[in-house]
């Protein structure tokens, strides 16, 4: 398993080529196909791209990501390739265009190797909700890798890609990063263009990266961040060089510990690891103080009201009329809609569409959606207030380490609690990162989450990088 830094060194030294590297990755994907991390693999295209990048390296015209082999969660569009979103309803759908992030990666000579398995339409915390079968945790195949970007996390952990792009709506990058023991970065909402990311909940969705190191995440963010004319919600804010923040220096850093994130339901091993990470920062010159995010208890409820409301509308387009799965036997229009959607969507997606439709319905809108919007603002204010006195917050990424497959599938509420520490960042639009820090008594990875101010990815990357080297 190689980090991008290692690859760059080897390429410079001439001890490997992009073509050879790509071949190795493709071999690992093939050998690890039992993990079910990939839904499509672009063997020929990837090799052709690798040869092109090798020529550019020889010419000295190669881009910043030359030699990086990237896999993409199957919710992000790659031109002329399928984008299934882990759903039967889009099984045959081929995207006619590239997502902005894909354009930007390719422009810097990254090599796109394939698309990763995921929870259907990014709805799930275990990557068990895929129409194409569950993804298995590398370390223990009876366990889940987290979700919804479970395929991406496993791809990176198993050496099938240097980096993977995922999407994070309520923790879908950070939680699987934590379960699999990789770094997962969810940037600020609006930092990265969503154009070409198939929407789950538009005001929550962020594209981010999963990698072996914080530095690799920073390198990718350098390339994919920045305003995009095709996404009105992408911010017109300058993009710094995020790698320059990785100075292993936390002296004077003010770290906040939100007390609400250490309550009931937190696994003792996870608690111990997070406390240890805090101690490490303290010992190295950071100041630590307890802070309060008083509306934390409403996080999951608010998230599931607002995100499902948006999802119910975003997923309306999959109706069998123009593209995607259409049920055969329907006799009239309403029957065609009902049958296509009943057969095309999995049960978790249907549950959320129904929930979202309900909260937007006449007579319920004020009680649920409008109230949810108000609480969301309160949660945002909690963070703003906390960041008055601290530079970042340290929390567990998830309450537990990787759980057994099938353990929570019949209990959606327990499953939803798996995202209890991550959804708040999406509600507040702030950046968050999960970095591996220690293991539990079974040897399963634990992730520490660092949350930062809006558009201050630099600080959380700095802390993650520090903890990464200290763990």
């Amino acid at each position: 398993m190689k980090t991008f830094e290692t690859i760059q060194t080897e390429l410079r030294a001439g001890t490997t080529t992009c073509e050879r590297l790509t071949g190795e990755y493709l071999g690992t994907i093939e050998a690890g196909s039992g993990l079910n991390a990939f839904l499509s693999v672009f063997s020929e295209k990837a090799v052709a791209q690798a040869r092109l990048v090798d020529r550019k390296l020889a010419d000295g015209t190669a881009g910043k990501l030359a030699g990086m082999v990237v896999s993409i969660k199957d919710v992000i569009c790659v031109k002329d390739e399928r984008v299934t979103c882990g759903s039967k309803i889009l099984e045959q759908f081929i995207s006619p265009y590239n997502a902005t992030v894909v354009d930007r990666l390719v422009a810097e000579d990254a090599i796109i190797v394939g698309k990763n398995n995921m929870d259907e339409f990014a709805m799930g915390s275990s990557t068990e909700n895929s129409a194409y079968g569950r993804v298995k945790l590398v370390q223990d195949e009876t366990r889940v890798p987290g979700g919804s970007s479970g395929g991406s996390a496993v791809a990176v952990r198993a050496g099938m890609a240097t980096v993977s792009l995922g999407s994070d709506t309520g923790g879908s990058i950070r939680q699987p990063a934590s379960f699999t023991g990789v770094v997962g970065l969810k940037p600020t909402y609006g930092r990265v263009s969503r154009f070409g990311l198939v929407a789950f909940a538009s005001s929550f969705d962020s594209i981010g990266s999963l990698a072996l190191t914080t530095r690799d995440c920073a390198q990718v963010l350098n390339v994919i961040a920045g305003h995009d004319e095709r996404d009105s919600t992408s911010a017109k804010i300058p993009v710094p060089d995020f790698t320059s923040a990785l100075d292993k220096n936390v002296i004077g850093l003010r770290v906040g510990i939100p007390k609400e994130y250490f309550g009931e339901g937190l696994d003792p091993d996870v608690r111990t690891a997070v406390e240890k990470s805090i101690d490490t920062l303290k010992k190295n010159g950071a100041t630590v103080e307890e802070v309060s995010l008083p509306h934390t208890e409403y996080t999951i409820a608010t998230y599931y009201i607002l995100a499902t409301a948006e999802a119910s509308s975003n997923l309306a387009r999959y109706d069998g009329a123009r593209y995607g799965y259409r049920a055969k036997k329907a006799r009239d229009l309403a029957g065609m809609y009902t049958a296509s959607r009943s057969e095309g969507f999995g049960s978790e997606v249907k549950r959320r569409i129904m929930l979202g439709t309900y909260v937007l319905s006449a007579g319920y809108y004020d009680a649920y959606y409008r109230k949810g919007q108000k609480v969301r603002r309160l949660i945002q204010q909690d963070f703003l207030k906390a960041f008055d006195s601290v530079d970042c917050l340290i929390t567990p990424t998830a309450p537990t380490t990787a759980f057994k497959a099938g353990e929570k599938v019949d209990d959606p509420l327990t499953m939803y609690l798996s995202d209890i520490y991550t959804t708040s960042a999406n509600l507040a639009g702030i950046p968050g990162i999960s970095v591996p820090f220690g293991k539990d008594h079974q040897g399963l990875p634990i992730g520490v989450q660092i949350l930062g101010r809006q558009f201050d990815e630099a600080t959380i990357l700095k802390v993650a990088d520090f903890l990464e080297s200290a763990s």
Partner: protein
Amino acid sequence: MALWNERYEPVIGLEVHAQLLTESKAFCSCSTHFGADPNSNVCPVCLGMPGVLPVLNHQVVEFLIRVGLATHCSIAPRSIFARKNYFYPDLPKGYQISQYEEPICTNGFVTIETDDGKRKDIGLTRIHMEEDAGKSIHDQDADTLVDVNRCGVPLAEIVTEPDIRSPREAYLYLTKIRQLVRYLEICDGNMEEGSLRCDANVSVRRVGETVLGTKTEIKNLNSFRFVEKALEFEINRQIDLLESGGKVVQETLLWDAGQGVAVPMRSKEEAHDYRYFPDPDLVPVLVNADWIQQAAKALPEGPTGRRDRFVDEYMIPKYDADILTSEKSLADYFEAVVTSLRSKTVENFKLVSNWTMGDVLRVVNTDKVDVAKFPVKPEDLGEMINLIADGTISGKIAKDVFEEMLTSGQSPKAIVKRKGLVQVSDAGAIEQMIDDVLMKNKGQVESYLGGKVQVFGFLVGETMKATKGKANPKIVNELLKKKLESMKP
């Protein structure tokens, strides 16, 4: 019908959808051109493909500011888009992007002139932006066909207060709105092609009652006449129902123009809960004072202002000014003709008015041509009127010249020269012809001198005929009269 005025009062509100004449669609760069091959003006965005995002075309906002200012609305410094959710095959995203809780224009009014000449303000609740859906075509053999070219074409939805009190007023309001959007050059106002669409809400109540009755909504009104007819039908239906002890049920009706009846939509079709909520893909629309000021400056003169100016400036009758300003293109034409007049006199302005309202409009209406593309250029018509004014041609000859200009497109001078149509004003020459005519018509001269003065007209006609119509009729009149007087015993 009579029942209306005596005992019942109709209460009507209209919702007009005006398709905006922007170059590209509201949220993508596809063309809005009408009449393109089905499904050719499309892209992943307006097709609602997975992963795409809308980006607002700012020309849409500009147009809304224009119509908002022209209708005395408040322009919101911040307005937001909402999603209107419903399933239909010609609606690719499963929702329309519209505005709901915070529209861009609110609280305006449009002034109509009722048939008795009184002015009445029809209040506007709001005007908001919306994207159009596609078109379902049901009448082709077995299947329903969908054309999504229209998907994403911007609309302004203009919603009135329940201020309209008769189908006639509804008609007048629609005429006014059509005239307004055409003046503002934001919509072509073509109801038959669907670029102006109207839904009507109507209820009736006892005269003197202040509480509103139960309303029904009528859809599918694709001409002004249909609106008037459908409202008449529905008002009578509601009154009959109430008179016979029944109750009006709140429902949506479809106007069937063929049968002349409004039929209830199936309840399944109307049971829409649109589940409006703010569209998270779009940022709020911010309009600052500068923008509004610029738009106000660029606002073209409205029809009423222009009519009043025509009466003041050209001293033409209000009747003329009304007709001339009914369409911006016609008013533009009139003023272009006036510009090319050599002598700017009230008489000549009236001449221009007569020719524009008479001959120009006649051709426009019978041949269905666009005034802006009228075959006789305004400067040519102006030149022709100059020729009348300076006596080169007579008004009668001018009719022939105009016809010739229509078909050949030549300048009036060239036509007059080619056909030798210059008016004869030489008294000597005319006198000679008069002498000839009097010689040939001795009998008529006798009877004139005997007191049958009506014969005078005949003799004028004969003289004109002898000059092939080229003699200056005024001079002919004078000379003939003088001659005959001198022959009196």
